[in-house]
């Protein structure tokens, strides 16, 4: 407890850093996911293949390797990234690989006749995406995206490995400092507290995601008998 009070400003800084990292990553990952995910639903074979390769590549390579890669390789090309920037890039790429699948799944969940009717009415492709299929797909996309945000918040802890002073790193530093300066090891308490804090943040998000999912389901207009109901794409594991 004493430890907590003494280090409070430091801990809060760490939390702010974690949040900043998560939001920055979410921002970029969302943009990439929506652009590439939407492109992947268009009828260009080669484009689809490219997006597929991107998704498979960054989902199959461990996230840690991904982050280290950005951190170590970017300087070789004359790009001096700060640890914060390196982690943001690494996480955004990984997050968007997962996000693309969510967006694509969302668009695929929109019944085909929606597209066909819109096209028959003479709407242009971008109009269909913006006004017809987009809003419907969003219902299926939003809840898993909250799940993705949860994963991103958890993944920001990897920033500690390349030296971003985010929440987890702060815990690590406190443990080391106390062991060195005061001669006792508070690892158990500190890491337990760290776990609990992450749990509170992430389970709030998870709970929000579930609420959103229920809410969006309830608002959905009643399906007519015979209408095709499509299962929600399940959120993918990290």
């Amino acid at each position, binding site marked *: 407890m004493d430890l907590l009070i003494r280090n409070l400003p430091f801990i809060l800084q760490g939390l702010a850093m974690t949040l900043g990292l998560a939001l920055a990553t979410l921002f970029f990952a969302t943009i990439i996911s929506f652009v590439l995910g939407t492109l992947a639903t268009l009828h260009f074979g080669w484009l689809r293949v490219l997006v597929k390769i991107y998704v498979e590549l960054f989902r199959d390579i461990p996230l840690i390797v991904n982050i280290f890669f950005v951190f170590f390789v970017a300087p070789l090309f004359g790009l001096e990234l700060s640890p914060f920037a390196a982690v943001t890039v690494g996480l955004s790429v990984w997050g968007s690989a997962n996000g693309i699948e969510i967006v694509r799944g969302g668009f695929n969940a929109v019944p085909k006749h929606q597209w066909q009717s819109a096209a028959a009415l003479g709407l242009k492709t971008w109009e269909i995406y913006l006004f017809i299929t987009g809003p419907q797909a969003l219902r299926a996309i939003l809840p898993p995206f909250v799940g993705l945000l949860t994963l991103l918040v958890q993944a920001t802890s990897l920033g500690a490995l390349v030296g971003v002073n985010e929440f987890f790193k702060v815990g690590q530093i406190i443990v080391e400092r106390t062991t060195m300066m005061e001669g006792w090891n508070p690892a158990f308490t500190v890491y337990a507290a760290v*776990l609990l804090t992450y749990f509170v943040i992430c389970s709030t998000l998870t709970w929000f995601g579930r609420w959103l999912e229920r809410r969006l389901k309830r608002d959905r207009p009643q399906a007519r008998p015979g209408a095709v109901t499509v299962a929600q794409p399940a959120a993918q*594991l990290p």
Partner: protein
Amino acid sequence: MEFDVAYLTAQWPALMRGLWLTVQVSALSIVLSIVVGVLGAAARVLQVPVLDKLIVGYVEFIRNTPLLAQLFFIFYGLPGLGLRLSLFWSGVLCLTVWAGAYQIENVRGGLETVGKGLREAAFSLGLSPWRYFRLVAAPMAIRVGLPSMLNTSISLLKNSSYLQAIGLAELTYVAIDRISMDFRTIEMFAAICVIYLVLVLFLSFLASRLEYRLNTPFRT
């Protein structure tokens, strides 16, 4: 900055040692996590009092905390309770606990598709809960739950790279270690990316084969 193949061949044995450790840790944890998953899911579906609530809490906790923090808690925190594990077994424990939580959900998802009627029928025929589970529920559930179970196993393999953070000399650790000594960044990353890709794609391939085989009786 040219690609040095000779360097890579020189470092190959070290990488292979790392890979072997990665495979060992992952294989052991995958098996153990599936055991945890099956037992946990059974307890939840059979609604064992108290235990099922505990399992819900366990699953929620693991899913909402970062793996890295769990790992540090196990490796650096648990000795505070007098439980000191070697690097290897800390790694196995951590990955098992992590993946076990997901496997419980996967198996439970499968078990839930086994209808209530079947369960009542089995019990009224005098099957014990264990025999119901083994003879009726498990064979049906495994077909539904298998894809997600295999997905979790593949994630586990990838996440074994987290263990480099505590200093277990698995594949990623070896690569990062060599990079900090020789600065052959591109070569090393190319090597481990390819190795991980091959591993994951190979497992995915096995997974799809297995699914195909298990679904044989249901294919028309």
